[in-house]
């Protein structure tokens, strides 16, 4: 693999596809993602956005094509912990409080430098709900607990599958604020979304995906 550019892209896909029952779920796609960059993955319902996210996260194996992480073929052990995945299922235990859920996440993944659970929960708008069982929270509040993981855990690439779902206008602004902060700090993010998204930091890249 010879890279002519000096900076190696964080994530690179070449003719990436996934086969289910030997049928490609989406047409082969190519893209590069550099540090500090945001890309929106667009596609209709059933076009394979979630499947793509799960491949990039390392939950599904690459069906066809190649995937590179920092210029080297992506392997599970090389990039775990650098990638943070937020899927449709939020990965929260309903019987535990937001604080306990985040403690477990940090126990497995580690802390981002200088982060504390209490201040993050306040920042994300869940002050006062720290010790309430997650089952008693509203759908939007649960989503916010999951978003708190983004602030808490160290990762250079965020994979956000429909992060705006279930959020009110303040919540959407919050996600955009988190993304901007992450990009400014040199992180990268891939986001799938139906709705239009506005950023202060300029128009994001678009990656189209077809069934």
């Amino acid at each position: 693999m010879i890279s002519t550019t000096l900076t190696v892209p964080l994530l690179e896909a070449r003719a990436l596809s996934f086969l289910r029952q030997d049928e490609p779920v989406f047409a082969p796609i190519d893209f590069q993602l550099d540090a500090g960059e945001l890309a929106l993955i667009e596609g209709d319902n059933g076009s394979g956005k979630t499947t793509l996210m799960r491949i990039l996260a390392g939950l599904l194996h690459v069906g066809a094509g190649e995937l590179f992480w920092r210029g080297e073929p992506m392997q599970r052990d090389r990039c775990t912990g650098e990638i943070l995945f937020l899927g449709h299922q939020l990965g929260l235990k309903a019987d535990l409080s937001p604080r306990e859920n985040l403690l477990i996440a940090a126990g497995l993944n580690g802390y981002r430098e200088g982060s504390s659970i209490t201040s993050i929960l306040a920042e994300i708008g869940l002050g006062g709900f720290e010790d309430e069982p997650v089952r008693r929270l509203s759908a939007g509040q649960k989503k916010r607990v999951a978003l708190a993981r983004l602030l808490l855990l160290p990762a250079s690439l965020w994979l956000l599958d429909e992060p705006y779902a279930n959020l009110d206008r303040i919540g959407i602004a919050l996600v955009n604020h988190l993304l901007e902060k992450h990009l400014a700090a040199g992180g990268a993010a891939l986001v799938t979304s139906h709705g239009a998204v506005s950023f202060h930091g300029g128009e994001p890249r678009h990656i189209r995906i077809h069934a």
Partner: protein
Amino acid sequence: MSNWIPLWLHKLSSPPTFYRFAGTLRPWAMALAVLFGVIALYGGLVLAPADYQQGDAYRIIFIHVPCAWMSMFVYAVMGVSSLIALVWRIKLAEVVAMESAPIGAAFTFITLVTGSLWGKPMWGTWWTWDARLTSELVLLFLYLGVIGLYHSFEDRRQGARAAAFLALIGIINVPIVHFSVNWWNTLHQGSTVKLFGPSKIAWGMLWPLLAMTLATKFYYIASLFHRARVDLLALEGGKDWVRQIAEDEARK
């Protein structure tokens, strides 16, 4: 020179090549199975002398013993192809492993039924908790577990991989079961029935047995090839080569 075998195997593992290969070989395998089966039955039921102890009842071994061998042989084939399927993700290996399971289960079932039919006149009981019998029964449950797990997945290839994993666990399990039941029998002083005495088997009895062994092997090949072909067509439904076959069939 030295690498033509892997090359040939690699080529054979592509579904269209195997489909044609299996299609050519299958009628021959079936014909040989019938031929050897008839010879073995004639040799075993008519030509072979009656046993001086067991009379004519022993003749069930001409079915029982080859089926018992096949129940283990098929499991071994299933285990090896399961390993290949898990390590190299070769589709043909998944198909062979999963389509072997019902055939193996059938052989195991026949073994158990014929054994029990034989046991009634010989030991006066349909069933005894002997290590061999128990292992065979556990083998049947393992086959059924593999089949059940395979069919409980929506995605057939994923189901095949999960069931292949179970098949490998089973390979470790069968010898352990055999050993533990042996130990258990000595503890309980149960009926220790020797299935095969030290007596040497006469040639007149041996050759029909061997012929039946060949017949069951060929039957397995024919049956497996048929099932694998059907499975490959279903799995590769959208591919060009399958479309080609469908068009050729329609033209006929």
